[in-house]
């Protein structure tokens, strides 16, 4: 065998190997998108991370983090963020499940309900915050109705505190959680529940032992995505909350640094802290999720 044919053979087995592992010219199609991500997402993130270790005042490389964790006001923004984001995501998911369970079978007007629910999502947090500001104000419609119905005697204070932010995040987060849960629930084969009922399980047991375990992985995702939404509460925190008090969340802290002192190094440090906090929760949720069954929810053969 001449060297030439040998090398051709070598290159053809190599090509074979590459092809077997799915590497061929088709992969070039990913390049533009990947490049865009590398340049505008990965690089800036890495750059921001490095920048956060080079404080504006040329102090030690941990200076930004020292400042952040040394200042009780700054430090507390982590707590403030969690105090809003965790309960809001939990409430949204817990509300979404029973409603989605009720609507899983075709309900009259289902599409209309879904359409109305999608409105707050597409309006976005800014508009919801602006509307709530007037709606929840002491002489807004909400307090007026409650007082007219003699449920309360003095207007409820729901602006410039925790509650305003909470409510705005429920209004924009619940529909999202609901529609997502609904799409997960409708992916579960209804035969599963029928089988359970033949085996003697009542409605509550069917939910507890069949629907819920099959839904759990989807609920984990729903929770995480709601958590992400709630984690960047910055418009509602600024407009409805008390941004220098208990609504001084991480996002507000970061944007304040930028708008007040243009200190991008410090702001990057805060956003890195935000990302770490958020990823911790997501990883935790996914760790719990992996203990559940995560395969197909259609059941049976096929």
């Amino acid at each position, binding site marked *: 065998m001449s060297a030439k044919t040998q090398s051709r053979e070598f290159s053809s087995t190599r090509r074979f190997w590459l092809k077997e*592992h*799915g*590497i061929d010219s*088709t992969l070039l*199609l*990913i390049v533009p*998108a*990947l490049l865009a991500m590398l340049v*505008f*997402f*990965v690089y*800036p*993130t890495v*750059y*921001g991370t490095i*920048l956060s270790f080079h404080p504006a005042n040329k102090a030690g490389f941990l200076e930004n983090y020292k400042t952040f964790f040394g200042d009780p006001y700054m430090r507390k923004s982590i707590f403030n963020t969690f105090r809003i984001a965790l309960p809001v995501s939990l409430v949204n998911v817990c509300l979404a499940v*029973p*409603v989605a369970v*009720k609507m899983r079978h075709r309900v009259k007007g289902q*599409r209309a*309900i*879904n359409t*109305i629910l*999608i*409105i707050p*999502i*597409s309006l*976005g*947090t*800014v*508009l919801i915050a*602006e*509307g*709530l500001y*007037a*709606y929840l104000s002491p002489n*807004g*419609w909400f307090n007026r109705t409650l007082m007219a119905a003699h449920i309360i005697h003095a207007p409820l204070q729901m602006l410039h505190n925790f509650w305003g932010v909470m409510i705005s995040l429920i*209004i924009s987060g*619940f529909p*999202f959680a609901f*529609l*997502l849960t*609904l799409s997960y629930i409708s992916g579960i084969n209804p035969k599963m529940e029928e089988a359970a009922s033949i085996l003697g399980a009542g409605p509550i047991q069917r939910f507890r032992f069949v629907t819920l375990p099959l839904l759990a*992985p989807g609920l984990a*995702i729903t929770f995480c*995505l709601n958590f*992400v*939404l709630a984690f*960047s509460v910055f418009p509602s925190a600024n*407009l409805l909350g008390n941004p220098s008090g208990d609504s001084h969340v991480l*996002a507000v802290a970061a*944007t304040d640094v930028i708008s007040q002192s243009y200190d*991008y190094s410090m702001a990057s440090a*805060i*956003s890195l802290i*935000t990302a770490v906090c958020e*990823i911790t929760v*997501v990883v935790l949720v996914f760790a719990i999720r992996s203990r559940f069954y*995560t395969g197909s929810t259609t059941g049976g053969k096929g």
Partner: protein
Amino acid sequence: MASLATPPEVQVKTKWKISKSPSSWLVWGAVIFFFINLVGVIGTVVVSSFGTEWFDGWLPAGWTLSFYQTAWHDYQVAELLKVTLKVAGAVVLIAILVGTPAAYALARRDFPGKRIVMLCFLLPIMLPPITFGIPLATFIYKLNLGGTLLGVIIANLVPAIPFVILVLTPFIEQIDPRIESAARICGANTWQIFWRILAPLIVPGLLAAALLVLVQTVALFELTYLVSGPTSTTLVVALYYAVFASGIRPYQAISAMAVFYMLSTLFILIVALRFVSPTQLVSRVRNTSEEKN
């Protein structure tokens, strides 16, 4: 007793029972409560935009349209609409052009390192925009693109491209690859396969992806807020500034501005809902989960 007489109430009775169970009441009560408040929130904005003065009472003291004029001129709504359209249009177009080929490759090939590539596309969606938005803004300002239209478009592309990919990948996956093989055996080359076989099959997916990105870009606040300047402000950001700096202009003008914003999003939403179902608008993330398993 064993007569053949038919008791038609059997089915009716069970139905009746289901709809009157206490848990159903609770669920429907909660849904209706939610809707009432939603209508209240939106209604407050709309009503106040038409009112002359509204300090106390259920409704404003009088009605006027003049604040729409004020808002239109003072906030330069026409200019904002133009910018918003330009940004959204460019983002949708580029995201589709860049995202579709990538989605195709990801749907059809399994290669070493695919998980890392997927992670790269997932993170911009799984992270709060503010976290990568700040470093991104820093970077864009460093490129001297801060405050420009191009900078805003770039910032919006970061979540938009992954969106297109995550919507389209499962969509392409469910197109049987044997169709392509069949076309190849019939003598079609790659280019012909793409245009004659794939393109017609992908169109519904492309449409859904484009609309999703459109709805999202118009409502996306954080990233635009961080990089926009006076000439590149979109409607949402302008609305935020208007609300945040309230006191400068009458409250009703801000409401009128909000109504302008609302009308434009609702218009896009109505158009979108003609082509995709409401659940589809959020459930693209389901695919995210399947990718992770």
